[in-house]
């Protein structure tokens, strides 16, 4: 490992947040290209599956993290549980914020069909989303945080897959439409209102 790679390794070790190549270059007083070259060397050293620590690219920067191989021992040593999983409601709100940000609470409620106060509150508390100004109508807007990208292992928001991928197939859609129309007819005619 050359001096630059060693220095970059030390910087990543010290920093509690992911550090961008630009900031690394600035700190090391070299060009970004040189830093990227040093990161490539580091990556060889930290190839997954060989070390207890791995080099990861998340939230628009580089950071070191422990390999899952050590999870059990880490839990025993630190007695700290991992991030609790998300409830369905929280995951849905988070997905909507991640894709549509900035997005307001009424918009979240409209898409989910239910108010989402408590899920949004928990996501705010856990630092996964944050406020980002107000809409034209005065509603608070939300966006995801760096912590979100870090905890979900995303190199950036563009690492999220195209949401159209989750759309129902045309057959499923057709079936949904038919069921709805049938229900609508029944309501229009039937005695039950």
């Amino acid at each position, binding site marked *: 490992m050359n001096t630059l790679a060693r220095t970059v390794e030390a910087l990543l070790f010290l920093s509690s947040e992911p550090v961008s190549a630009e900031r690394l270059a600035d700190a090391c007083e070299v060009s970004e290209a040189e830093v990227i070259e040093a990161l490539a060397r580091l990556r060889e050293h930290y190839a997954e599956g060989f070390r207890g620590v791995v080099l990861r690219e998340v939230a628009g920067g580089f950071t070191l993290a422990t390999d899952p191989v050590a999870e059990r021992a880490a839990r025993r040593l630190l007695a700290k549980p991992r991030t609790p999983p998300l409830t369905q409601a929280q995951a849905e709100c988070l997905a909507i914020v991640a*894709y549509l940000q900035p997005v307001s609470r009424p918009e979240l409620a409209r898409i989910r069909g239910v108010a989402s106060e408590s899920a949004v509150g928990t996501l705010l508390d856990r630092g996964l989303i944050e406020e980002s100004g107000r809409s034209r109508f005065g509603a608070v807007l939300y966006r995801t945080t760096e912590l979100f990208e870090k905890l979900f292992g995303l190199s950036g928001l563009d690492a999220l897959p195209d949401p159209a991928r*989750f759309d129902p197939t045309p057959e499923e859609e057709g079936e949904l439409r038919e069921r709805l129309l049938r229900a609508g007819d029944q309501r229009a005619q039937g005695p039950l209102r």
Partner: protein
Amino acid sequence: MTIAALDLDLEVFQGPFDLLLTLVLKEEIDLLEVDLAEVVLAYVEHLDWAGELDLEAATEFLVLIAALLELKSRLMLPADEEPGLELEPQQAADELLARMLEYHRYRGAARHLHELLAAEQGFRYRSAPLPPALRRVSIEAAERAYEPERLASAIGELLRAPAPLDLRHVRRPAVSLEQRLRHLRGLLARRSRFSFDEAVGDSDRLTEAVTLFALLELYKAGEAEWEQEVPFGPITVRATP
């Protein structure tokens, strides 16, 4: 088991029923998000499991769930409905379909996030403080980055005590089945017959309902019987001879 301890496992809440109630009243859980049908199901399941109906608990549960339902329906109804905005069934279905498709997309995205998070479970990041020699940032390099207003509004929000709660909708039954049984048995001991109206006096409807429960219990136990000659007419109660 009392109703208070009824164990719930809902989307927005996990724990005993009375904690749910407390959190709803404190507005820490939004009632709109609570699936009350699930609560009823949990109760029915509990009944199934217990194998017998505890009238005391059933009364309490009915009162509470009814109050919650009423409160929730009020919350859900628009404040003032504008006439003429009703959609034709076709239109309504189209709009609903569009919504469902949109929701379907984000439900899928949520599943994807679940998977991402699960895949990340083993990775841990270091969060050690910096060595003291490196801890001091240079003040000279610091530029104004935050608005002082942010601090004032944060402390202003903390100063605000939560609004006093409107508890009119949700009320713990102030009257127990046991009390009403005692009351009826007292009347029966003193008089051979009396009317139901006399037994309840001008108590509230809840007391009336619980008194009726008590009367059923007495009938079942063979202690009392009653008759009502015409619908909605007076009910005469008398001790079983």
